[in-house]
């Protein structure tokens, strides 16, 4: 997981470099594949500076508060069904609770504290502004995303992540095709909740230097970075589970394609998640940043009404059909 994050950073630098017709990191290892290791060593050995006027306790706690929720969300994400490895039954998920989706929403919302506390504890102008921006953005888009999740729950009839994948199997359709509006809202909201471009206003270099982690350095900065990428992976894997049928192979109900079943489910899952992550990078390399009022207008006046309308339509269709 954490190794995946470090390689995500390399991938991001590479992809953006390719989009911009550059080479990206090339020095460490062939084509720069060992760059993440060098980065980690650098970050760990770097001096860890605490500003004199910072609030020491909160300043130390904030990176941890940001990272821990991002990691514990993985407890409910199913990488695959129960499989047998060398004759032993192994479940490719940690736990299957019947409120899985709510758990993800609630745990992820704790992460906002990390950002807002980091900005406050730094006792400095730019981080505070950035953290207020970030948390306002997170709270606004959380509403829209949660409403789309409600419509997913309505169509699947369960909140368990495993149950949602199984529902897609039984209904014979990935929810990407059954719920395109929900998919769109979730994707835009996911970009905004992870503070990625084009919604990366909290880190707008031109306006706010480095964002809420301007005053952080060394390993504490690395923790924020880890949290951001871990959140990206969380959003991608939740999207995979909800909209792309989790570990199911493409067209799981068509017998003619059953040769695809040779590839185990967790590889499908990772593949789909990877596609998501690639789209994240692609969007970042392609789109310019939104203005703050545009961001808020999009969130409150477009996405939330759309999400609520989607819930109503989904529920109506569910009752009628």
């Amino acid at each position: 997981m954490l190794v995946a994050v470090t390689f995500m950073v390399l991938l991001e630098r590479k992809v953006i470099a390719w989009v911009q017709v550059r080479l990206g990191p090339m020095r460490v290892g062939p084509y720069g594949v060992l760059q993440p290791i060098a980065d980690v060593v650098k970050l760990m050995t770097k001096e860890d500076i605490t500003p004199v006027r910072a609030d020491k306790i909160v300043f130390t706690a904030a990176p941890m508060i940001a990272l821990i929720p991002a990691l514990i969300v993985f407890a409910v994400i199913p990488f695959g069904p129960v499989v047998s490895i060398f004759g032993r039954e192994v479940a490719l998920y940690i736990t299957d609770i019947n409120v899985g989706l709510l758990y993800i929403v609630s745990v992820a919302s704790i992460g906002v504290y990390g950002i807002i506390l980091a900005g406050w504890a730094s006792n400095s102008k730019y981080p505070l502004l950035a953290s207020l921006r970030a948390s306002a953005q997170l709270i606004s888009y959380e509403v829209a995303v949660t409403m789309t999740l409600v419509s997913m729950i309505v169509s699947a009839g369960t909140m368990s992540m495993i149950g949602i994948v199984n529902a897609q199997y039984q209904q014979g359709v990935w929810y990407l095709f059954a719920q395109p509006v929900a998919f769109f809202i979730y994707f835009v909201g996911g970009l905004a909740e992870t503070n990625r471009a084009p919604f990366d206003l909290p880190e707008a270099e031109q306006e706010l230097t480095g964002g809420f982690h301007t005053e952080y350095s060394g390993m504490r900065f690395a923790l924020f970075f880890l949290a951001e990428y871990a959140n990206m992976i969380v959003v991608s894997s939740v999207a995979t589970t909800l909209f792309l049928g989790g570990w199911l192979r493409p067209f799981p109900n068509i017998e003619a394609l059953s040769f695809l079943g040779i590839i185990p489910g967790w590889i499908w899952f990772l593949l789909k998640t990877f596609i998501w992550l690639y789209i994240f990078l692609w969007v970042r390399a392609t789109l310019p940043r939104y203005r703050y009022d545009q961001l808020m207008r999009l969130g409150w006046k477009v996405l939330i009404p759309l999400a609520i309308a989607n819930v109503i339509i989904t529920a109506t269709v569910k009752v009628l059909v």
Partner: protein
Amino acid sequence: MAEAIIFYTLAALILAFAVMVVTVRNTLYSALLLAADFLLVALLYASMNNLLLAVIQVMVYAAGIVLVYVFVVILVNLKRPPEQQPDRGRYRPIGTILAAAVLGELILITATGALRPAPAGGAEAVGSVENIAMELFTNYLIPFEVASMLLLVAMVGAIVLAKKEL
């Protein structure tokens, strides 16, 4: 036995955090301790096998309401740190009266046995999403709707207060 240990540990922690919430000088620490306290309460629910309640506790209280407190504290504290507040004891009479009222209520409830025992069927059955939804939208529909209207009124009021010229 293990359940009892978990319960009493959590209960002691919850009480300790609650005491710290009201004794800490720094307002922001107070809000943060409150959030931690709510998280511990959620753990308590989870240890009683009521995951739905635990998750909602985290979502509504720890992440929702306290976050708004934190916002307010951060924005207000920029102007005036708590040390400079005049006359820290001015709320003491009201506080005493309120505390006495709550204590009286508690005593009344325990004395008259108004604390009903939990319905049969265990926490697992009572706390499931389907059961709660069924109760909420049939037996308790009117209180539910009234509560939502109340929240709407509060929201409209807040907007009117915040934006004087609309």
